[in-house]
Each structure stands twice: as C-alpha cells, then as structure tokens.
C-alpha cells in the first residue's frame, strides 16, 4: 500500500504539467484492459482447450497450430492457461479492492464527517492493521484459513481497508468545510442526507481513481502469493502460479515464465496508468473542482 501513498505525495509538491488530454498511453492501456477483461469473461465459451488437461507426450511443446502458445511442463495448453489465469487474477484483483472500497470508504466518510471519538477509534484500529506488513499478514492468514480463491479475496480485501479509509477521510475532511455542506446543514438537512447526497458523490471520485490503483496492487500481491505456492491452490492457473511453475524450466523454455510475466506486467501497468490519470483529474487538493 505504501506505493500508493508515495505517488500521492509527490503529486502535491511537484509543479505539475497538467495534461487535460488523456493521451495515447491512456487509451492503449484502456484497450488492453478491455481486451483482457473480455477474454477472461468469455473464457468458458471460447474455443480453448481445457487448461487442466495434461499431455505427457507433449511437454513444453513449441508454438504450433494445435497449441498456439505451446504447452507447459505438464503438457497443458499455455494459451488456455494464460486466459484462465487472467480470470483468476482479475477476479481476485477486482473483488478484493471492492471490499476495501465499500468498508474503507464508508468508515472514512463517517470518520471524516463525525470526527471525535469515533474518528480516533477508526484511525487507531486502522493503525493496528497497518502495523502488519501486508504480504506477511496475507501469508499468515492464508496459512491458517487454507488456500482458496474466496479466502484470498477476503484477506486482500481486508488489507485494503486502511488505505481506502485514509483516502475517503482525507477527502471528507476538506469537503465537510465547504459552503455547500454548511448550506445544507443550515437548511436543516439530516446527517444521512448530507452524507449520502452532498458528500458521497464528491468523495466517490477520488475513491474510484484509487480503486484502480488498488486493483494493480492486489494483482501484484495475489501474483506474489501464488508464485510462492501459497495463493491459488493447484492445479488451477493464475499468472503468479504460472510464473512460479515456469521458473523451474527457465533454462529450457523461458517463455513459460515470461508469457504470464508479460501479461501480469502489462495489466498492472495499464491499471496504474488509467488509475493515475483518473487521480490527476479528480484530486481535490489541486482545487480542480
């Protein structure tokens, strides 16, 4: 999570050449994400081979008409595993930050609006969660809970809560003093109305931009856990576990590690690019409203 905070800090202090135009890279990244998402969603209906079918006679086969991207060290079709792996990485990568967004966002909004004891309690308990280096916490909890996709998603989601809480709280703190909120209070609006109708629509934008960066971080952490063999349970494919398996045949067939590595890198980069652009557009601290 520290990566995200770093990039937020330098955005404030650097003299910024603000690009109103989104730029070519932004569109390339968006197109890549749409392609990957579509492939992942359509994976079961695409004419792919079964990603779990082993063929011991065709181990580490080269590219061919039958296996477009060859086969892995157990003779499984590489292309099918890449696409089904994308499914796993993206499922975890998208759902986990949603948990963080929903819970962290709500906590941050409430803490920033009501202040006082509640805020102290929320910030304090988040500090406790932040005391655990995220990867180590995730590892320890999966070790106890057992490896499965729902467990993995839940843990990574919980780990994201503090970061989302901070973003939501920071945005709420500045917004709650703005004229339109004071006007709503003066008109006798209830707390619920101010929170939902005045603050939430303004807080949700930076949160959504942060969400995209959260997806990138989550995909990396999921990849790291699966790479170590402690994330997605085998024989299921995830990009991380494929890189881990490919590592053993680095000397004979480096592509087995590099194909999923390229997929992972480009996807993480694309989420970072799109998220960073969105953040630059929605950052309330630049007074761009």
């Amino acid at each position: 999570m520290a990566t995200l905070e770093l990039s937020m800090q330098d955005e404030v202090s650097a003299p910024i050449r603000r690009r109103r135009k989104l730029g070519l890279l932004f569109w390339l990244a968006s197109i890549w994400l749409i392609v990957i998402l579509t492939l992942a969603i359509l994976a079961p209906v695409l004419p792919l081979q079964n990603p779990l079918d082993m063929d011991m006679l065709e181990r580490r086969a080269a590219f061919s008409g039958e296996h477009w991207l060859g086969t892995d060290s157990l003779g499984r079709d590489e292309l099918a595993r890449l696409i089904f792996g994308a499914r796993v990485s993206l499922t975890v990568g998208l759902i986990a930050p949603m948990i963080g967004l929903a819970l962290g966002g709500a906590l941050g909004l409430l803490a920033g609006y009501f202040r006082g004891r509640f805020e102290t309690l929320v910030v304090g308990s988040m500090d406790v969660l932040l005391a655990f280096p995220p990867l180590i916490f995730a590892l320890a909890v999966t070790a106890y809970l057992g490896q499965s996709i729902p467990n993995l998603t839940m843990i990574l989601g919980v780990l994201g809560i503090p970061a989302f809480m901070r973003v939501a709280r920071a945005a709420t703190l500045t917004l709650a003093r703005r004229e339109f909120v004071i006007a709503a209070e003066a008109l006798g609006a209830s707390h619920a109305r101010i929170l939902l109708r005045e603050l939430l629509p303004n807080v949700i934008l930076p949160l959504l931009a942060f969400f995209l960066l959260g997806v990138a971080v989550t995909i990396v952490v999921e990849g790291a856990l699966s790479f170590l063999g402690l994330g997605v349970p085998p024989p299921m494919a995830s990009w991380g576990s494929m890189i881990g398996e490919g590592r053993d045949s680095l000397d004979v067939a480096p592509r087995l590690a590099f194909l999923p590595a390229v997929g992972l890198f480009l996807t993480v980069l694309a989420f970072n690019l799109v998220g960073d652009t969105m953040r630059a557009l929605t950052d309330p601290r630049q007074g761009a409203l």
Partner: protein
Amino acid sequence: MLNFIVRRLLAILPVLLAVSLLTFLIASLLPGDLAYVILGDQATPENVAALRRDMGLDQPLWWRYLSWLGHVLQGDLGRSFRTGQTVLQAVAERIPVSLQLMLMAEFIGLLIGVPVAIACAARAGGAFDRFMTGSAFAMLSMPSFLMAILLIYLFAVELRWLPATGYVPFSEEPLNNLRFFVLPALTLALAEWPGIMRVLRSDMIATLQEDYIALAKAKGLKPSRILFVHALKPSSLTLVTVTGINIGRLLGGTLIVETIFALPGIGRLLVGAIYTRDLVILQGVVLLVACGFVIVNFIVDMLYAVLDPRIRHGHA
C-alpha cells in the same frame, strides 16, 4: 522534545497491545487444532486430549492470551515443536541475513535513485527527465518476483555470471557472500529506486525555485555546486520518511526474494514455517515483525521531528 517522545511512546503502547491480540487471535481462532497438527493424522482422541491439557489449549481463550502475553513479555515466545529451536534463537540466527539484504538493497536503490533524481530535477521537463519519469512509473508496476525471474534468467541462466541461489556467511567467505547477495539485493533495489527518485526529484524541483538558488546562480556559482551543495541537502528531508515507509515494503519484498534466492533470512523462516505448519514459529515471527515495524515507524517519526521542529510543537 522529551515530552514529545513520551507522548508518542504512550501512543504506540495500545497499538503494540492490539497487535499482540490480533496475532494471538489469528493463531487461535482460525480452524486447525494445534494438537492435531503436532500429533499428525494417526493421533488418537486420548492423545490429543492429553496434549491439549499439557499445552493449556483447554483453558478459556482470554486466559490463554494473558498467559501467552505474560510469557512473551518475559522474552519467551515459545519453542518450535518441529526443530526444538526457540523462536528467539531462530530469529536471531536469521536476522543478519535479512538485514544485510535490506541494507544492500537500500544502498543500491539510493545509488541509482539519487543521481537520476538530481539529473532529472536539473532539467525538469527535458528529454532525460521525461524518459526516466516514465521508466520509474513502469518500474513501479514490476513486481519483485518478476524482476527476480528476469535477473536470474539474464545473469544466472544466460550469462552465468552470478549464482541463482545459495548462501555462505560473510564471516567465512566475504567475497562469495557478496556474490550470493548481488542478485537478490539488485532485485529489491530495482523496485526501490523509483520511489526514491520520484520523491527526491519533486522536492528538488521545488527547492530549485527558491530565492537563494536564484541568488547562487546570480553569484555565478557552478551549476554542479548549486545542485549538490545548495539544493541537495534541503531537498532530502522527505527521503528519510520514505526510507521508513519503504521498510514495510522491503520486509514483504525480502520474504519473496529470500524464498526465490534461497537466502536463510526471516522471510524464508516465515515461509518455511507456513509450509511445515509450524504455528509457534509463525505466530512468534509475525508478532516480532509487526512490533519491529511499529517501532521503526516510531523512530522515523522521531527523526522527522528532529529534522522539522514544526512537527514537535503543532499537531501537524
């Protein structure tokens, strides 16, 4: 200053307590009975019940927490039921490896990040600046395990310059020890430098717009002197905090890197404990790492207060 330190110390006590409670609860509430793990599949119910009594597992939860905490406070974190080593022995044996790795990584990271940042800030917006800022952004999307695979492929498999895995203590064979550490430290450093570079670059650009820099230029000082003597020091304050924040990420990073490169450090101890379901080691190491992390953050806070007096007094 003393007042400030005491206040901050009192503030981290509840955090440390909560960390210990959370670590204990994770280890105790989640499925998987420790007695079954120790005795294995062939355990009879009588054996399990006896062992549970011996280990105090039949006591209520709050009592187990308090007695565990009592032991921890006396420096007794328990003993691995697999190797017979105490948690403290195991950690003490492995901490030099992790520290050496982290120090070398941070050193190489600074070695790359600082010159690049200065060069970028000197001509902000120029071709070199745009290229390096772009590269730094791309590098931030490169997970350390990808970098490790890439480096192993290049330097160990293709070029055969460096060993991919292995370790010898520094005291026995200093040169060989460093050879084993080059790739793991480089892996971490390549993930570290973009953060260092981005922070220093933006601080330096801000400093270069100050009046006294304009004065130095007007006096006709050499640009290199202005950059290194006048601008670098006041720009490097944020770097201290960043180094502190990095430690958490480095800890996570060492876990992966130590496993990939087979370095016997804390990270590998933890992963090994997970593979063998050595719950005592796991619980002890997680507790120590989390407490260490809290204390490091505390020290960074203190350093920051020393460097910037405003923090000591206000509630900034």
